[in-house]
């Protein structure tokens, strides 16, 4: 193949019902190259990978692999593996109850003459492989005896030993700590020097610049471009992923009331953290203030909110609500001090599909009261009607099952649920995702109105414009760490993007 390419995908297109998931996408990988595949959620990264490994069937385009004549189509992951394309996923796909050696060789074990598994040879070969990759592992131990990072590396070792030419690492670092990431990088560079082409999918910008040679960016199922690392500094990468041309960003005037940092404090978090998801952070939120959390997906936005709310128990640090120190171990504790959380995955964490709109609205109130204090029906009806009107929830009646409502209206019902508990502090995690523009504006207005009534809010959104319109202040997150804050004056599309991208020029 030309230019030392080990993999070349040309004009790949594929549709899911109603959505064009990939539109004429090219992807090229050289021998001994580590190439990052970047893009926000829904950009088509996983779909492209799945087309390559045979999980999805693509409709148009060609895939060429070095050493194989003509275009290839993989039937399934096994087929892809036979052609030298191996994938290591975020979660380790090995068997914890088998020994390391068995995990490396299962399905292709060395056999003795009488047809039994030759454990001696297998262990010897496995030990040799570990040594080659400079891993200090006793191959006769069960896999579960080793840390997740080592398991991850064993998974890679298995993939590599199948003589792969292309190794796909799908977010391998998301559950690893810094030291473990270092180990993984060492191994990746080791493999790269042996001529393996590596596709590295990650959300962590730091890691891209630490280990990659090239970057391919996707957005909304189309190819934005293929770059070398030098060509694409952080800010430009973020701009490419988010689809804003960096040079002509029009600044959007915030509608919110500006600087509120002199108002009394509602929430005062100091050194809160949860290992593996968010590093220790401080965050103050004043009364009547909307604080936005910004950062790329996976940067720790939701995780920060979850720690404050007690959905993930904080392992370090203290939190003061209204000047008083409180202990928040569970969401009920948080509710009792006047907090509410609108989770980002409303299907999984928010709505109870088979209950009516009314029942969904009073759910949080009921939980706060405890199950033995029933709210009188008359009052339930009153509350439900009040919020259905206030948020203009479009429903046939208050007794309609919530699953029959549209996404936007479901979202409003959940919002109503929290408003009904009359919280002083409300966390909204992606409250406008997947709903139409009109409802989006309504929700944004409601956020500003609530703040006007003296409530404090955390607002999380992937859309920067929306954040600029509603927030008084922003906290910037990167790679599971709060890296800075933007005051009202500093808030502009450009400023936010620079801060998200980081790397020297941001407000550290």
């Amino acid at each position, binding site marked *: 193949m030309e230019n030392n390419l080990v993999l070349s995908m040309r004009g790949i297109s594929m549709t899911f019902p109603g959505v064009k998931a990939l539109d004429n996408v090219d992807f090229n990988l050289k021998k001994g190259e580590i190439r990052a595949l970047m893009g926000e959620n829904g950009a088509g990264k996983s779909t492209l990978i799945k087309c390559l490994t045979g999980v999805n069937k693509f409709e148009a385009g060609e895939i060429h692999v070095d050493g194989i004549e003509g275009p290839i189509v993989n039937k399934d992951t096994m087929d892809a593996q036979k052609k030298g394309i191996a994938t290591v996923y975020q979660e380790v796909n090995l068997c914890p*109850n088998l020994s390391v050696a068995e995990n490396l060789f*299962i399905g292709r074990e060395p056999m003795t003459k009488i047809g039994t598994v030759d454990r001696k040879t297998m262990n010897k070969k496995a030990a040799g492989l570990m040594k080659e990759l400079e891993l200090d592992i*006793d191959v006769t131990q069960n896999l579960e005896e080793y840390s997740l990072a080592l398991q991850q590396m064993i998974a890679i070792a298995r993939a590599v030993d199948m003589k792969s030419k292309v190794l796909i690492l799908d977010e391998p670092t998301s559950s690893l700590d810094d030291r473990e990431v270092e180990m993984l990088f060492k191994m990746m560079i080791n493999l790269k020097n042996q001529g393996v082409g590596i596709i590295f999918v990650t959300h962590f910008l730091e890691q891209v610049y630490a280990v990659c040679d090239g970057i391919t960016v996707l957005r909304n199922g189309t190819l934005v471009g293929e770059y070398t690392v030098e060509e694409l500094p952080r800010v430009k990468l973020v701009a490419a992923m988010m689809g804003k041309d960096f040079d002509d960003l029009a600044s959007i005037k915030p509608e919110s009331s500006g600087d509120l940092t002199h108002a009394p404090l509602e929430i005062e978090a100091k050194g809160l953290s949860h290992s593996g998801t968010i590093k220790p952070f401080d965050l103050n939120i004043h009364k009547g203030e909307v604080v936005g959390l910004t950062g790329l997906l996976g940067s720790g936005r939701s995780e920060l909110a979850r720690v404050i709310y007690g959905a993930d128990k904080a392992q370090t640090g203290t939190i003061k609500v209204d000047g008083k120190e409180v202990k928040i171990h569970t969401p009920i504790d948080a509710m009792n001090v006047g907090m509410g959380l609108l989770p980002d995955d409303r299907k999984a964490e928010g709505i109870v599909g088979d209950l009516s709109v009314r029942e969904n609205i009073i759910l949080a109130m009921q939980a706060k009261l405890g199950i033995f204090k029933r709210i009188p029906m008359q009052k339930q009806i009153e509350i439900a009607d009040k919020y259905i009107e206030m948020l203009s929830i479009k429903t046939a009646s208050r007794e309609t099952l919530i699953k029959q409502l549209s996404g936007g209206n479901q979202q409003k019902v959940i919002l109503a649920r929290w408003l009904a508990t009359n919280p002083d502090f409300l966390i909204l995690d992606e409250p406008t995702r997947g709903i139409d523009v009109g409802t989006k504006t309504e929700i944004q207005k409601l956020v500003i109105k609530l703040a006007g009534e003296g409530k404090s809010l955390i607002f999380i959104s992937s859309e920067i414009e929306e954040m600029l319109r509603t927030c008084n202040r922003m906290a910037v997150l990167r790679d599971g760490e709060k890296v800075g804050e933007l005051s009202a004056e500093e808030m502009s599309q450009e400023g936010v993007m620079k801060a998200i991208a980081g790397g020297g020029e941001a407000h550290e």
Partner: protein
Amino acid sequence: MKKSKINSNTLLLIITIVLFVVMYGAGCAVYSNKGFTHLQTLLNIFITNAGLICVAAGMTCVMLTGGIDISVGSCVAMYCMFLAVGMQAKEDGGWGMSSPVLMLLVLIIGIVFGSVQGYLIAYLDIQPFIVSMAGLFFGRGMTAVISNQQVDIQEPLFKAISQLRIYMPFGIGAYVNKKGKLMVPYISVGVVVALLVVVVIYLMLKYTKFGRSIYAIGGNQQSATLMGLNVKKVKFMTYILSGFLTAIGGICFCLNTMNGNTQQAIGLEMDAISSAVIGGTLLTGGVGNVIGTLFGVMINGTISSLVKTNGKLDSSWPNVITAILLCFFILLQAVFAKMKEAKK
């Protein structure tokens, strides 16, 4: 990284074995005057439970894949009835067949039964519990359809096999009984078969591709698929194996009881499951081995034997004690699992 020489699964097995030794030792100390110390008492536990050992070995394989087979008890009853009525003379309402032919037929039925269940579970992805529950009703129902009376076996060859005593070599454990007669301990043909089954299954699980695939599937089915194992086929084969071992167990069971009746082997499936669990097999699959199961059966057998030797305790006590042991072992497994998690 700290490495322990003994992992928690081995530790569970050791605890099971130690528990058996302690329990049996205590029995010897307390009931030495009632003959509990004689080797024959221990061998009798084997003789009584030979059928269960075979069935439990099959159950262990199924449980290792993460499945379950609750049809085995009623299958054993069905096979016993099949053998009994089959051997009964024609003039007495039986089929007048010879025992070797019948035993062969039972083994074939076992394989067919296992493959039907295995097909439904492995290829049609139906819950093993539901499939084998259907098997349970079928087996129990068929037993009564064949005959709803107790049918005793008189066939000479089968009787001879049943009564064949295989004495301990060199008269190990021989003693003189109260009447002054020399007793040499013995085992039955069923015990030989059961021990052979245990050894074969142990080696199969440890050293063959099929055996290792069983563990892989139980450890993580999705991973096993991604690593290129034919998960469906392995599961299918495992249920066939269980069906076959249940048939062998049924024959051993029949050699011991020498009759067929509708109330036979009720709850045997639960004995098999509890033996496997006490022996360190996880219901979630992937962990355990047949040696543990053998000791599980022996622990249950020892409890029954102790209660019987005592003579005053109600015969339901073994159930209560088994329940306590089960809780204890499940608790241990949970504690080990938690410890593993904490280590990470």
